């Protein structure tokens, strides 16, 4: 029990043991690096390239302001090819700012091409541009499309 352990600890012999364990543990105090987010893929034997080929994304890619400067193709590339990363989050955020909306069923981004012909509580319908990431990696126009809000992320 807690009280029993405290009794033991405050007793001389265990107090000494605890001080010893505490002193010995000083060599293994965790540092900030030990708490970093787990790296999903770490090359076991990285090929040593020139130092000007960065091994990890330069910190500037953590800067949201940079994403405003990327063109739409770059944003889509980061979104689909840097999944699960902070960069994907920043790319999605910038796409939304540029009036793209993610469709949870088609797993791609849509943008109104013109004012929708119909808007209800459940959906909107009209002509949209969407990004074809699986086929020709290009933007396509889709007329008479119904965007159901239940699929809006």
């Amino acid at each position, binding site marked *: 029990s807690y009280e029993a352990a405290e009794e033991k600890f405050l007793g001389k012999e265990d107090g000494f043991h605890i001080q010893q364990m505490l002193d010995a543990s000083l060599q293994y*105090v*965790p*540092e*900030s690096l030990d*708490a*970093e*987010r787990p790296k999903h893929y770490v090359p076991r034997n990285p090929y040593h390239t020139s130092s000007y080929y960065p091994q990890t994304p330069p*910190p500037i890619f*953590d800067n949201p302001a940079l994403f405003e400067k990327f063109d739409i193709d770059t944003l889509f590339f980061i*979104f*689909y090819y840097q*999944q*699960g990363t*902070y960069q*994907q*989050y920043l790319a*999605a955020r910038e796409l939304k700012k540029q009036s793209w909306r*993610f469709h*949870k069923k088609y*797993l791609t981004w849509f943008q109104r091409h013109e004012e929708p012909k119909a808007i209800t509580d459940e959906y909107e319908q009209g002509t949209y541009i969407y990004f074809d*990431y699986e086929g020709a990696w290009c933007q396509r126009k889709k007329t008479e499309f119904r965007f159901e809000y239940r699929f809006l*992320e």
Partner: protein
Amino acid sequence: LGSDLTTLGLNLNSPDALYATFTSPWSENNQAVGLIEPEYHLPSCYNV
């Protein structure tokens, strides 16, 4: 007399929460924001 608590590497006058960039109780400088990414969430549907 205790110690000057402003020398522990925390910006006590920060208008923002300290916990978001608090990396370790042992770090002399807990303002190294570059070390950790800010808080963010990816909806599961982004996992394409």
